[in-house]
């Protein structure tokens, strides 16, 4: 979507929801690590210094506060993304073959970033993936919060204990995405400028 002046890469609503989402995700992940530490699923704990909340009750308070921000902001983002036509215009078509081709060209250093309005196949796949991953995080989180009340969702996740694992791995994939995303932003700094100023 370009504005009438032709220079806008990201509309204001997109930039706003992006940064609110970044804040919500940072709080959810850091407090979530603290909650994980109360009863680790696997044979490791997150270093306390990178967690949020100080103790379990504090972490839970942050987690269950930021969830509202994540849910409302995420819903607003998806609605505007679909209604504006941006979702289908920017992220589709995407194909496994196209993604593979663009990954290979990227590895050879030949993937062009000439037009920041155009997402290559790897970007399309990555951004669509993170949208889906956040949906999975929210749904599995609802099961952990209300496993009795949301029975259908609980069974879809394979039960309460399976939902804990779904929630954990969806978090791990989200963190991996954020890591890769930050590396790419560092490599293409004007993408950061575009996400702040819109152009």
């Amino acid at each position: 979507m370009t504005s009438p002046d032709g220079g806008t890469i990201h509309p204001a609503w997109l930039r706003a929801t992006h940064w609110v989402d970044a804040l919500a995700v940072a709080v959810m992940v850091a407090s979530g690590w603290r909650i994980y530490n109360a009863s680790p699923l696997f044979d490791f704990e997150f270093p306390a210094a990178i967690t949020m909340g100080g103790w379990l009750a504090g972490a839970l308070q942050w987690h269950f506060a930021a969830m509202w921000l994540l849910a409302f902001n995420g819903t607003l983002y998806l609605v505007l993304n679909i209604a504006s036509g941006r979702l289908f215009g920017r992220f589709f078509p995407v194909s496994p073959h196209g993604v593979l081709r663009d990954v290979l060209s990227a590895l050879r250093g030949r993937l062009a970033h000439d037009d920041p309005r155009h997402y290559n196949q790897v970007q399309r796949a990555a951004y669509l993936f993170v949208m889906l991953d956040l949906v999975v995080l929210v749904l599995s989180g609802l099961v952990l919060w209300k496993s009795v009340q949301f029975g259908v969702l609980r069974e879809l996740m394979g039960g309460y204990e399976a939902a804990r694992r779904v929630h954990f791995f969806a978090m791990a994939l989200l963190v991996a995405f954020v890591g890769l995303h930050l590396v790419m932003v560092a490599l293409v700094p004007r993408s950061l400028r575009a996400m702040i100023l819109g152009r």
Partner: protein
Amino acid sequence: MNMRRHVAHPGLDTESILKEARRLLAPRVEEPSRRAFLARTLTLGGVALLSGCSLSDNESVETALSAISRWNDRVQAWIFDPRVLAPTYPESMITRPFPFNAYYGVDEAPAVDEAGFRLEVTGRVADRRDWRLDELRALPQTGQITRHICVEGWSAIGRWGGVRFSDFLARVGADTSARYVGFKCVDDYYTSIDMPTALHPQTLLALTYDGRTLPREYGFPMKLRMPTKLGYKNPKHVRAIFVTGTYPGGYWEDQGYNWFGGS
């Protein structure tokens, strides 16, 4: 404070003194970590929003989080459907051994003498009197094999038997228009629940565990078992039940854990 870690038994027989000391100290021990959590919050969280924070600002962060937690109580009460039952499981799925969990070690679980024990029932009830255990055992009994979910995240399946709590409330003539039912325990634990959960068909005044008298470590002489609530909302060693319209709080709830604690 980790709710699961056991406190080493110091080998003294002055248990009540220690318990009292621990209760007095616990909030102070928490303080440094609570301050640390706020300091860390400011580096990780809403940095821009909260720049130039003083202590009072930190307290306003805490106030805001508590307010959201109370809002979450209301949302949970709204989501709670009294007709929805928690899943039940076959006997083969019971977790053995069922984990012990409290803010003290298993050795310190209170030993209650059955002969002298009386359950006190007070507040907005027609029949305010004490109950002996054999009187409770003489009431119609029911059972369940359900999943106990701890606020820490872990869960375990157990089997409890006893009196359906709604039957008991009806028998004592409880005013079910009151908002809360509160519980006081032999170990000084206390908590409270909403009336709709108290009346839920799976809410059980549990007198047995896995077919035998509720053992000391699981809450003898009785615990309130609710598969629709997290573990800390399920009080053990219950000695008093009261029906009230005044918010009674709870041991963990008063320290920041969510009050509704529903599942």
